[in-house]
């Protein structure tokens, strides 16, 4: 027998009756316009500039356009375009968003501007500052969430970020100390820092490198500094969760890649050990927490912790898994965006993030239910998605590197995550509906960005155009040693 379900408070009605509250505003349309301009600019650079001409230094060498920055500028701007279209479409049915659209669009634009400059940055301290600035732009967006104390969540997010970045700053201090003791002048420009390093196993240098990786690992959501991530992703508005998971995550990945590029071959053993430990712990933590999760946004958040663990394990083996890691990072951006944006639709209709009241989502919301299913399969690394290919390449790289312990642990934990996710999500999607309601109608505008993300994931997993393969390979070579 069907029982009443707590419906979305703004409507107290199913999605089928979600009538437009107001027309679209110029602001959200302008946001889409700016996002489209960013995306077109990044695609134009990619299509017209041969890879052989890279790197190009800009703004007195503070910015650099190389394979890494080009790839990530394209990825984050593609995701941004999808998110801005989602915000534009949600504005029709959300009173809160309609009232708040000016400040929110302004903050999102500022956030994206900082992220784009950060990705292009050729100076580690400037990059560090820009990551923190992006956090300061995102905190007011997080504070617009639906938690009991949204400002509290935003504050803890800001605090964790400051803590992790302070640890990275300690790393800079140790490197400066190391250089001074050896009588070498140090510059934190990415293309110049390498000259101040020694391969002689200097302990200050090792400590500095270790702190930098550990601190940035916290920004990636790697254990042990991961606690901010599930809380923030769950409590933030969905569009903000997607921005954090798919855009800000990637600027932190760029920072890690830059550090690996600088330390190319120096301290390789220590890097490997540190990343291995953080990867192991993250996978175990994510597996345990996914088993306990009864909230679909939190479940996606813990899946993000597990993804960071896979990236850390892949990076720990260096060259063997480098291509797989780069492909995994790129595919993850689209998987997370797809999942969070679809979760946002579900939240708008059901008014809750809990799994328990939801059942038979695919019948009430056929399109969103289907897209969520696709997103979950992509997240779990099923073919034909890019994440499948990437996970296979990472596992194969780990085996080639002879680290059977990492291989076994990754396989076991991913299996646990698969079973636990399926146990939670599949009844929610395919179970008998707990309420009687006609299927929800979704506008084409809501579905286009998600379909775009699915298309990219399938393309990267089945047929990748040569130009993109070469770009991915260039980035992989730069971090692979």
């Amino acid at each position, binding site marked *: 027998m069907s029982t009443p379900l707590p419906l979305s408070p703004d409507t107290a009605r199913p999605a089928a009756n979600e009538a437009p509250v107001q027309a679209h505003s110029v602001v959200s349309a302008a946001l889409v316009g700016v996002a489209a301009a960013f995306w077109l600019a990044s695609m134009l650079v990619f299509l017209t500039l041969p890879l052989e001409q890279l790197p190009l230094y800009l703004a007195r060498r503070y910015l650099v356009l190389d394979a890494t920055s080009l790839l990530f500028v394209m990825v984050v701007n593609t995701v941004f375009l999808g998110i801005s279209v989602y915000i534009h479409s949600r504005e029709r049915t959300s009173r809160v*968003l309609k009232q708040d659209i000016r400040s929110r669009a302004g903050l999102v634009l500022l956030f994206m501007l900082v992220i784009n400059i950060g990705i292009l940055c050729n100076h580690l301290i400037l990059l560090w500052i820009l990551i923190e600035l992006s956090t300061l732009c995102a905190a007011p967006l997080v*504070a617009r969430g639906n938690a009991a104390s949204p400002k509290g969540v935003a504050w803890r997010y800001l605090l964790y970020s400051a803590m992790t970045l*302070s640890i990275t700053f300690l790393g800079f*201090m140790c490197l400066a100390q190391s250089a001074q003791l050896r009588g070498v002048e140090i510059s934190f420009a990415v293309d110049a820092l390498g000259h101040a390093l020694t391969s002689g196993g200097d302990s200050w240098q090792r400590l500095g490198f270790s702190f930098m990786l550990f601190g940035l690992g916290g920004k990636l959501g790697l254990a042990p500094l991961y606690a901010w991530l599930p809380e923030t992703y769950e409590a933030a508005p969905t569009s903000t969760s997607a921005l954090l998971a798919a855009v800000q995550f990637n600027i932190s990945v760029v920072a890690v890649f830059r550090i690996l590029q600088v330390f190319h071959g120096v301290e390789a053993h220590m890097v490997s050990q540190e990343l291995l430990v953080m990867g192991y712990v993250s996978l175990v933590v994510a597996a345990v927490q996914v088993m306990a999760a009864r909230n679909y946004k939190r479940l996606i958040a813990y899946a993000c912790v597990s993804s960071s663990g896979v990236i850390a394990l892949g990076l720990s083996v260096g060259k063997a898994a480098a291509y797989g890691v780069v492909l995994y990072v790129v595919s993850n951006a689209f998987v997370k965006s797809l999942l969070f944006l679809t979760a946002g639709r579900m939240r708008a209709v059901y008014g809750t993030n809990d799994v328990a009241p939801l059942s038979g989502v695919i019948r009430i919301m056929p399109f969103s239910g289907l897209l969520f299913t696709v997103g979950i399969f992509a997240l779990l690394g099923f073919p034909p998605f890019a994440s499948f290919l990437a996970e296979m390449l990472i596992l194969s790289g780990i085996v080639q590197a002879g680290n059977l312990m990492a291989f076994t642990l990754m396989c076991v934990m991913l299996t646990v995550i698969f079973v636990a996710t399926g146990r939670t999500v599949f009844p929610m999607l395919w179970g008998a509906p707990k309420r009687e309601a006609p299927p929800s109608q979704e506008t084409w505008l809501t579905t286009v960005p998600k379909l775009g993300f699915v298309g990219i994931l399938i393309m990267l997993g089945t047929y990748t155009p040569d130009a993109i393969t070469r770009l991915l390979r260039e980035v992989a070579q730069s971090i692979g040693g």
Partner: protein
Amino acid sequence: MSLPLILCLIATVIPVFFGKIGAAPFWLGLQALALGWITLTRHHELDVHALALGLEVLVVRAWLAPTLLRRALAGSAVQRQELMPSNLFAWGVAISLIILAFKFGDGARADVRALTLGVVAATVMIAFLVLSTNQTPAAQLVAMLFMENALALFESLMPEPWPLPVHLSVSALYVATVAVGSWLVSGPSGVLVPHGDAMEEDT
């Protein structure tokens, strides 16, 4: 050069042992004055770049940020709370951290450099200690600002001053931290105020 460094250290250590949260804007302002002094005396010639940097430190760090923080704390009961819990354990840890910080700086074996690195390390350590011993958001915000002042002081260890874009970014970061942090910790819906109602929609 060592006099402003000592002033900076005093402005970091005293509030932690004896200061209330309400007095933090004053101590942050004092730290900024010391930073401005270091910036101006560091350059052999008082050129436009040095003057602009000194002015930026004085306007942004010594005046604007403390003013914003003072406004955020105005009327709040938090002002009367201590920056760090005053007990022997916390004091002991703080003293040990300061000694260790100067031991860290001593490795450089050059007087002013060692002292600067020691002050930077002590400021960072003290900030971490405040973050771990005081759960009051206002105190945590002050600790974050201490950390960012340490970053600004760290610059004086570099062979060349940071270029203007990096300086401007550091200043923007400082102002943004004060502005966003103050907004989050103060006001009717700030972190300090308990909330029972969730917002109605997810967007």
